[in-house]
């Protein structure tokens, strides 16, 4: 039972990280990008590739994964966001990010293969550590670290404040001379790098597997919607709740109804509290 809790917490931390990736992209562009989960998938796959195929040491591979994630974030902005936002049709970004996510997943499937491949040990540790094993705690530490880092970034740095300004009112921000396009690009690179880091940290848990992206996109979104869009604490709580709930449900019922249960959680929260647990109601249709 304790092991179910801890395994659920570790998976939940990965969902939380995906939710944070959503949040960062959303703050500057009001776009929920389907590619959120794929940044973590890339972090895992490239981390394994750097270490196992190229034989790089762990720190270099970590940096490499973060760079790949950031580059993918940049690509997302250039290819799927920039032109679409300029035309300001609210549906098109969903289509363009979905298209990009599909292409990336299929490209990785063709290059890396469809079988999960191993992810090496990051920190030297004996495998018999049981519930203290790094594969459970690395994602948890990274998710909490990212959330704290983001809060500090938003409150203490100029760029963080620009992010907040843009998320409050993008037109006002532009009127005050903020280069909104550059800031948005920066936020996408940052989000991609965060995803890459999370994917690297969770690599031992998930293996390097091409189809991880879509699962994370969906579950990260459920975590986000449950916790409340835009809230970093909400992302952590939502992710942990989702991970632990589905792990405990699997413990008692078996794996056949996993998806049904996690979506059930989403539906219950959305019906009772549509803005999520920590979200703010922000309705301004006109």
């Amino acid at each position, binding site marked *: 039972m304790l092991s179910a809790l801890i395994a659920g917490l570790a998976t939940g931390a990965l969902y939380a990280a995906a939710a944070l990736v959503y949040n960062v992209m959303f703050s500057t562009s009001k776009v*929920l990008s389907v590619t959120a989960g794929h940044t973590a998938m890339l972090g895992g796959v490239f981390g394994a590739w750097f270490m196992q195929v190229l034989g790089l040491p762990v720190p270099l591979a970590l940096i490499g994964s973060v760079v790949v994630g950031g580059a993918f974030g940049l690509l997302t902005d250039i*290819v*799927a966001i920039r*032109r*679409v936002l300029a*035309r300001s*049709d*609210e*549906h*098109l970004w*969903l*289509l*363009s990010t*979905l*298209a*990009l*996510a*599909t*292409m990336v*997943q*299929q*490209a990785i499937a*063709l290059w890396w293969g469809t079988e999960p491949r191993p992810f090496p040990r990051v920190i030297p540790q004996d495998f018999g550590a049981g519930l203290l094993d790094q594969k459970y705690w690395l994602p948890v530490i990274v998710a909490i670290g990212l959330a704290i880092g983001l809060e500090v970034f938003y409150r203490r740095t100029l760029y963080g404040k620009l992010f907040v300004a843009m998320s409050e009112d993008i037109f006002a921000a532009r009127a005050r001379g903020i280069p909104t396009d550059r800031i948005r690009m920066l936020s996408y690179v940052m989000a991609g790098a965060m995803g890459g880091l999370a994917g690297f940290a969770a690599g031992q848990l998930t293996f390097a597997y091409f189809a991880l992206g*879509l699962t994370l996109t*969906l579950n990260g*979104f*459920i975590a986000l*919607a449950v916790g409340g869009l835009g809230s970093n604490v909400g992302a952590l709580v939502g992710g942990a709740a989702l991970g632990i709930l589905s792990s405990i449900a699997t413990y008692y019922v078996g794996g*056949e*109804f*996993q*998806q*049904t249960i996690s*979506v059930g959680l*989403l*539906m219950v929260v*959305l*019906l009772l509290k549509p803005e999520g647990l920590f979200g703010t109601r922000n309705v301004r*249709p*006109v």
Partner: protein
Amino acid sequence: MKHPLAFAAAAAALATLPFWAGDQYQLHLAALIGAYWILIAGLNLVVGFSGQLSVGHVGLLAIGAYGFAIVAGTHGVDPWIALAASGALGALCGFLLGLPSLRLPGFYFAMATLAFALIVTELVLALDGLTGGGLGLSVPTFPEPFDTPAGNYWLILAVASLVTLLTWNVARLMWGRGLICVRDSVVTAQAVGIPVLHAKLAAFVFSGLTAGLGGALFAVIQSYITPDTFLFELGMFFFVCIIIGGRGSILGPFLGTVVLTALPELSAPLAKLGNFFYGLLLLLVVLLLPEGIGRLFQIAMERLRPRRIESMPIAPHPQRLTDAIKAGQR
């Protein structure tokens, strides 16, 4: 109906397809396109007209297919009743899915439909007493004369025509205008008195009905269904057909369905790229041609045969005016 002649020729060509199709494989492809189109025609009202981005219609397709296989196959009920039951089941599930999820904003709705498709697959595997689990179910055919490839094709053609006619009627009349208004601006729609949720839900339930019918006919063509048949990628495929064909049109998505079903069959390298190809097409269309390829077709047609702009100038007629003034003064 702008081109009655072209329409009549196309209808005649489709109706006589079994006589001039090269072989049964091509007839099979035509029937498959027809079954897909029955679903896509309904989905088109949801995606192309009311602007709700459902990527999970493959779940409704699976429900229709399994419904038919279970009712007609396992329980031996008359296939016609089973076909109607599949449609009704699809509509019911569409209602149950649409009622909570259509209230959600765009991305939330898309994710809810995605989750729905995954849940259906999960349940199909879990309820193996009913669905045969991973082994799947064998699907019965329709009775004579619809049990041959040609008969089956004609049946699908008939259903597809009926569905197309219905969607065409919906699209060009008040309903279609209302849906387009909901797509383009919910605020405007509310302001002019369109019952937004009601309109969206009606379109969605209709798409559930066509997905159920399409699923039943798809299952008959496949002759055996397993959970592997109803992958999420198939839902993406339906969605891409509509976007690439062009939203807010019927001909566009139809051409999209035909081309995207036939292309990978004709070209092996494209089949190998699989979803990468669909993703690339989708991206290109969104970035370069958001109105879809159907629009390109339209523009080309207008270039070839410029529409005559009928001008009806009203020439001044001073004599009548003075007469009228005089008549008034009197």
